[in-house]
């Protein structure tokens, strides 16, 4: 399944779809990192609005993505977690600890811009 990765200035936006299999998530992880390197992006927004379920594997993948991207000196912010998905996640104990989150694309961008100003 192809996941669109858009470039917004010095940031990348990845729109995760619903029904992503483990293999899809693995490919995404690698693909995203490649793009960060290629474009020397300063930040990545992962938009999970379309994901109707976030289980332990998805949660772990998101944390790994954030970790790897930070190793390249860039920030990651996860946006668009739906209220019911967030509720289900915390029941499973998945809190995405250590990963920045924001409500939506707009908030995510504002966060990244703020963050890059601080590191300028």
């Amino acid at each position, binding site marked *: 399944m192809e996941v669109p990765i858009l470039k917004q200035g010095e940031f990348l936006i990845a729109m995760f779809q619903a029904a992503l299999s483990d293999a899809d998530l693995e490919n995404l992880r690698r693909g995203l990192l490649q793009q960060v390197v290629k474009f020397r992006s300063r930040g990545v927004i992962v938009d999970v609005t379309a994901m109707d379920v976030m289980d332990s594997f998805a949660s772990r993948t998101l944390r790994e993505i954030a970790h790897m991207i930070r190793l390249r000196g860039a920030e990651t912010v*996860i*946006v668009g*977690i*739906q*209220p*019911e998905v*967030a*509720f289900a*996640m*915390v*029941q499973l104990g998945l*809190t*995405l600890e250590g990963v920045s*989150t*924001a*409500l*939506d694309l707009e*908030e995510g961008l504002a966060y990244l811009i703020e963050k890059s100003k601080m590191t300028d």
Partner: protein
Amino acid sequence: MAKRETSTKDSGTRNNAAAELVMSEAPSELLRELVAHLRQNRTQLREEWVGRISETRLLTAMTKEEIFAEATSVYDSYVEALETETFEALQAYARNLSERIIPRGVETHEVVGIVLLLRDVLARSLFAKYQADFNKLNRILDAYEPAANRIANTVAVGFVQERERVIRQQQEAIRELSTPVLQVRERLLILPIIGVIDPQRARQLTEQLLRGIRTNRAKVVVIDITGVAAMDVTVANHLVQTVEASRLLGATVIVTGLSPEIAQTLVTIGVDLGKMNTVGDLQGGIEQAERLLGYKVMAVAEPR
């Protein structure tokens, strides 16, 4: 039910009696025969039934016209259930009917009452028709009774289930009303919790808050539990989950009004209070929230 002189209806007795009875018709044939009779006499039986309903003062919440309209549908569904010997359609009809009459204030005993009245009216009609042939009457009633009783059961259960569903809905609505999520400033929500919280209410609060964060695009939430006397471990855990889930939606939570007892409960379940954003009282919490949101409090210069 019409009185008859029969012994018990178990199959053992029936087998013994088989030598005496002439089993000329199969049970389904009998059913067809009695269904035909009930259809033929539909108008008059239905009238008789509606008459009995008013006599016994049932369905007083409905007008005569409404009763007549519903009576027609019930009668037809009843006979159809007898004929097809399937009850899914009847179940669906019962739920549908209940949905309509519950808001009118119709109660369980009325619904059970009118179905039993119909059962009796029809049984008497069968009795009147077949009374000359005692054996035939027995066989007809043997075919009718179990089906009629199952119908009464299906309708009653359908009504009760619908009633319970309505009551649950109403309780949920009341719970929601009693705990509003307030938008006080832009991007700031306040959730004052008062009274006793059981796990169900806690779950509802969390749902409401998360939806509120999304709708109001809140960045800070102040949950005030000054009005909460005590919290068991389950509910305390819900509070922690609410804080964590709010963060996933990009909102920071400040908990105010934490009593020493509740603080102790949280520590017991392994919460690091140092990590949780807590402030003594609601006012302090709102000020903290405003600071987080970047609001500055400025002294207003007096005009000269």
